[in-house]
């Protein structure tokens, strides 16, 4: 009986939901191809603002901000993924141990503390130990808050893998290291990759914590965009936004496909 699942109006609300979620993004994407210098008037299709992003007067600023964002995101995601993989192995495979629930709370702490509070606390900490705010402080803060995002898919994946694979390997005289790298890691790979991708996106996305710990003169893409937007939304900002939107959609799609493939295979 299908009737009890159907509620009138729910389809329209779902469609409304999609319109609200995608509307602003589609409008900005469309206007990023606007040939006019005014953001209100439509001046025909053109790529001039994309060219402006790469060669215009603000190009050097955006280029260095993009470089900082990208390198920080890559390093933060790699570090957070390695740390989270180790943590997931301990949490999922080491049985019960003292402090397990405390460790679980600690892993989830970055998700529970409001971002602005994390930002304040981190700034206070760095200023107290006398570390000059800049690239390094951003990186350390990013690794920390990326850990739970990397941990979640890795732990979920590990939970679904029966430990008989590792036991079989150990029975056949594989060392711990061998059984991890040859057996467990390939099985975990989809979880590890989506953990990495999520951590990467989360790092790239962060504005408020970065804004607190970046120090003077240092910019990442979000802080550079925020600085420009404060003076008004210009067409080149829409071109940059569309480029970043494309990168995000690409990464999420990759993560989705890898996860789906991973679920089908073992």
């Amino acid at each position: 009986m299908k009737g009890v699942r159907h509620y009138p109006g729910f389809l329209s609300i779902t469609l409304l939901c999609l319109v609200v979620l995608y509307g602003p993004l589609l409008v900005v994407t469309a206007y990023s191809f606007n040939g006019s210098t005014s953001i209100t008037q439509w001046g025909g299709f053109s790529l001039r603002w994309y060219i402006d992003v790469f060669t215009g007067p603000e190009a050097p600023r955006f280029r260095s901000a993009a470089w900082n964002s990208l390198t920080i995101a890559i390093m933060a995601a790699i570090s957070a993924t390695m740390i989270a993989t180790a943590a997931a192995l301990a949490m999922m495979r080491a049985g019960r141990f003292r402090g397990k629930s405390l460790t679980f709370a600690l892993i989830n702490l970055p998700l529970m503390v409001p971002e602005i509070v994390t930002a304040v606390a981190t700034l206070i900490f760095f200023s107290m130990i006398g570390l000059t705010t800049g690239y390094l402080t951003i990186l350390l803060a990013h690794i920390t808050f990326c850990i739970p995002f990397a941990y979640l898919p890795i732990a979920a994946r590990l939970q679904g893998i029966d430990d008989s694979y590792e036991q079989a390997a150990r029975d056949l005289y594989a060392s711990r290291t061998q059984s991890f790298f040859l057996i467990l890691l390939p099985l975990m790979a989809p979880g590890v990759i989506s953990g990495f991708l999520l951590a990467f996106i989360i790092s790239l996305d962060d504005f408020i914590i970065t804004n607190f710990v970046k120090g003077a003169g240092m910019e990442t893409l979000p802080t550079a965009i925020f600085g420009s937007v404060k003076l008004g939304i210009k067409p080149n900002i829409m071109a940059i936004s569309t480029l970043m939107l494309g990168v995000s959609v690409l990464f999420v799609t990759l993560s989705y496909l890898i996860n789906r493939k991973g679920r089908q295979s073992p």
Partner: protein
Amino acid sequence: MAFPLLLPTWAMIGIFLLLPVILMAIYSFLTKEFRGGVVWEFSLAAYDQFFVNRGLFGDEPATLEWTYIGIFWRSIWQAIVATTICLLIGFPTAWFIATRAPTTRGVWLFLITIPYWVNLLIRTVSLKFLIRDNGPLNEFLMGLGVIDSPLPLVNTNLAVQLGLFYSYLPFMVLPIYAAVERYDFAYSEAAADLYASRWVIMREIIMPIVKPGIIAGCILVFVPSLGAFLAPDLLGGAKTFMIGSLIEEQFRGSLGNWPFGAAVSMILMSLVLMALLFYARSMAREGTR
């Protein structure tokens, strides 16, 4: 075996988050230095500034200070409204997705989650671009003849609520979806056989069963909305000043007041902890039932 594997996690989160939060608690009891930073002298000045009004020159009898409590109250209110809008839109959406065929569900869910992974700043800027006074939305509505003059949306409470809703909607949809997906439709069918109408079934049977998902969704939207910075800062004006901006202001340049910023952060964090405790307790109650 567990210890060496967990050491990096303990070290990173312990040193770069737990320790800083403890330090922040200490800072909120220190004396402010004028160029930003603190003097290591115990003081209750930060909390005093928050709660107590002694008049412009500090010589009047102490009364309750309403400025900051007002900002908190406004933030809580904005977060409640945003959570309610998310629930009203998110529940039907989650329900609709969870009742699709298993193969198409994944695609729907994917569509709902993509925007969440798009940079929050970019989403907020996009929304501002769309709803600004001479923006595409107003032009579209005026072109249709629905309105004669542009709707002043930016710098209003509504814009901030819309921004928060737009930022955190997927947080509402996902847990409700998970709850509805586990729901056994045999209950609905049994009730329908006994002549219960659709909406009676929804209210009397489905709602109590999927309640944990609804509470989880509300917490996941409410908590980040409360401390949000981007939506109120970009979409709101002076009249929609929220906690996030109040805290940010205390650390901006040399005009700031670090102990006060730390104290406001402490108060915000206690509110969030209370919301999380409420969540944990209501979940425990659901579990024992």
